[in-house]
């Protein structure tokens, strides 16, 4: 009997969830059946985490119906969902590190002896029994923090399951695991399946999905883009569904503002040369070279290490290995200000958290990075600031009531232009742009794209990160494709197409 013939244990029917300004989930239907491992995939903003939060009682849906074990369910709190039998395993382990493994495993329902005192011997025996059932062999008396992250996660998992879970949701469970630990996890998942527990597996690692999942649901822009058996879906099809690009669809160019008539200039000395950038679980020997006047795109799925590569280059991500050269000179590791002085700066993806200073005006935000050059003996020159601010507000067509308006009152597109102006004011040699057009309106998007083009034309080196494949293909002269923290392909010239990018992402991993 196929598992999908069984009655669904957890089912979303036309679930919608609205946040101010966005429809995060738009009529999403998804059924989890007992004993199936169901992959949930999607790029940033697809609605994955919102859906998980609806399932686990963090959010209440605005529309649609949630059914659990055949009955309508409305979980008021995460606690209710958990008691009902829906457990969630997050990337970070939510346990008590100082307590013993056994205590963590049985927390709140320890075997008690007379007078309500915890029966330690019974507790250890029970804990060992539970863990060995999952093939986890460890001293349950030791404090949890002595275990590796992987083993801790197994304890969290065993705990979740032993609380009579019917559904286990795993959100990126392998992101900090060693390969051996991943194998153990998969062993546990297979056992869960045999026990008739439904597992929802959220990950970007395609190899893993194909290894453990039977069915897949692809979310895109808050809707279900596809649901079906994973075995029937080729990798490249899955990727094209996630990214929202039809296979074999040949688009005419000209939908973005990129001209791409920059002469291929492979002769000039690189402005940025990153060698072997490495950080455990994040980056694995990434090499990036950007020449003056060149736009280098970084392709890959969410979590492939694109943002991390850019952060590593500007010294905002601590590295275990690797080196960055700017115009041939090595940069001091881990120092953003050294990178900026050398001429390399980064436009962050999250404008609110890492970009704007919300309490300051447009003027102060633009002048921020350039302040030392706009001051004499530490005293700022208002006249110089005014001049710079005026130049860039005009050139970038920043729409603000006045330079003194609070930057937090501007639209997303204008905030992005303010941040670009902040960097242009220090005359950089290279800019690393992380999703420069995400979340801004169409008009501003076109302007930002045209600006990138123009700046590259003037000799600026640009590293472009974009989840918008069209933008990447039309904007970049050369594309490095990342997967799981490593460069898995380089495309240039005629190879720079959406299909080639997707095909490169889809190539079988080593593991």
């Amino acid at each position, binding site marked *: 009997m196929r598992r999908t013939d069984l009655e669904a244990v957890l089912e979303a029917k036309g679930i919608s969830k609205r946040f101010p300004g966005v429809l995060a989930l738009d009529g999403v239907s998804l059924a989890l059946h007992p004993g199936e491992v169901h992959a949930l995939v999607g790029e940033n903003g697809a609605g994955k985490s919102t859906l998980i939060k609806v399932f686990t009682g963090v959010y209440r849906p605005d529309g649609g119906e949630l059914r659990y074990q055949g009955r309508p369910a409305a979980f008021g709190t995460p606690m209710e969902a958990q008691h009902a039998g829906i457990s969630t395993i997050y990337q970070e382990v939510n346990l008590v590190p100082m307590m013993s493994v056994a205590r963590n495993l049985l927390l709140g329902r320890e075997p008690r002896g007379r007078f309500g005192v915890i029966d330690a011997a019974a507790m250890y025996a029970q804990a060992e029994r539970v863990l060995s059932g999952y093939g986890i062999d460890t001293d349950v008396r030791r404090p949890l923090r002595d275990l590796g992250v992987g083993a801790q996660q197994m304890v969290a998992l065993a705990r979740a399951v032993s609380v009579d879970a019917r559904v286990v949701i795993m959100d990126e469970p392998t992101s900090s695991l060693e390969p051996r630990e991943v194998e153990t996890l998969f062993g546990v998942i297979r056992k869960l399946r045999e026990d008739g527990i439904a597992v929802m597996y959220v990950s970007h690692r395609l190899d893993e999905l194909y290894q453990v999942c039977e069915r897949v649901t692809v979310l895109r822009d808050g809707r279900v883009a596809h649901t079906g058996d994973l075995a029937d879906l080729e990798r490249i099809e899955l990727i094209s569904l996630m990214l929202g690009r039809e296979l074999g669809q040949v688009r005419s160019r000209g939908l973005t503002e990129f001209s791409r008539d920059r002469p291929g200039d492979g002769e000039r000395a690189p402005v940025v040369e990153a060698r072997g950038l490495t950080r455990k679980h994040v980056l694995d020997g990434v090499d990036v070279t950007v020449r003056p006047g060149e736009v280098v795109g970084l392709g890959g799925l969410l979590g492939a290490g694109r943002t991390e590569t850019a952060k590593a280059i500007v010294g905002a991500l601590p590295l275990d290995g690797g080196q960055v050269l700017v115009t041939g000179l090595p940069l001091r590791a881990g120092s*953003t200000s050294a990178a*900026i002085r050398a001429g390399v700066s980064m436009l962050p993806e999250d404008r609110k958290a890492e*970009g704007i200073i919300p309490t300051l005006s447009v003027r102060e935000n633009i002048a921020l*990075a350039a302040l030392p050059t706009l001051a004499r003996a530490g005293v700022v020159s208002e006249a110089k600031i005014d001049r710079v601010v005026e130049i860039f507000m005009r050139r970038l067509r920043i729409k603000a009531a006045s330079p003194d308006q609070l930057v937090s009152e501007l639209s997303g597109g204008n905030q992005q232009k303010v941040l670009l102006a902040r960097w242009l004011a220090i005359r950089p040699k290279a800019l690393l742009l992380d999703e420069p057009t995400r979340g801004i309106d169409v008009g501003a998007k076109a302007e930002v794209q045209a600006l990138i083009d123009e700046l590259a034309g003037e000799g600026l080196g640009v590293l472009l990160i974009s989840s918008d494949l069209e933008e990447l293909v039309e904007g970049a002269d050369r594309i490095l494709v990342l997967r799981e923290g490593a460069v898995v392909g380089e495309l240039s010239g005629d190879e720079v197409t959406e299909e080639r990018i997707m095909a490169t992402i889809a190539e079988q991993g080593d593991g």
Partner: protein
Amino acid sequence: MAELTVRAAAPKPRVYAWVQDYGVYAAVLALLLFNVLFTPHFLDVANFRTQLVQVTPIVIVSLGMALVIGTQGIDLSVGSVMALSAALVVLYLGYGWVPALAVALAGGALAGLAGGALVAYIGVQPIVATLALLVGVRGLANVLVPQLVEFRSPGLIALGSSSVAGIPVIVLVAAALTVVMVFLVRRTTFGRQVVAIGGNRPASELSGLPVKRVLLIVYVISGLLAALAGVLATARLQASDPTSLGQFIELSAITAVVVGGTPLTGGRIRVVSTVMGALLMQLLAATLIKHNLPQSWTQMVQAVIILAAVYATRERR
């Protein structure tokens, strides 16, 4: 029509913004006016001077506190640093009052350096780092000078009691420091970096600001100002009293900053308003006492004012 609607809705936030920006000035003025009208002998020079002299240490300490709070931090150690400087200044008075003052200031700067290093480089939360200093530095001050010591240094006594053109020197010092602080915050690269770091630290780091160094200097400045306040208070008392000098002044300073409209969430520093906040609280206490209301009433009224100020400076959406 749409235009009209927007205009009609506009006045409300404008009044609100005005209260936020100038409420503390209005409150000080209103209270002054009330006293001029209803409090006998309020305008007597002696009375006025006493009020100003009393509030001076709080003003000086709160200048540093405003800077620290602007970075989303807090400095609880200021009272103990005042005690340390009081101890140091009498210990080194034998070398003359100027070198003794220098040693006291150096002591304050070192305490600030310790707090700043913990916060900026080790990542200890400001409230914890400066709480440790509050306890430890007070202890150190008591070890150096275990009981109240009177002194007879004409120079130091003159610093505490003499006047220029009828204005006490220590009031002049506080006024000068206020001007310096306004300049520092508004016109220097450092001041703008302080505000930016308080407004968004990750963004400041990605923008290449020397975040750690700036934080360190902020705490050093707070320590220096507290030490200066300690010396001035000691000069005025004509005695060094490390056991009780500056106790709870951190609370008065935080109150002055908050009542002045500097949000505890950082990213904004209002120097002159902070001074006004200190004056307001002082004036309020004096007024209520003059009108024979008990001390406990003062405290309750002060609580109301603090809450009102926090309400007015809460983040607008």
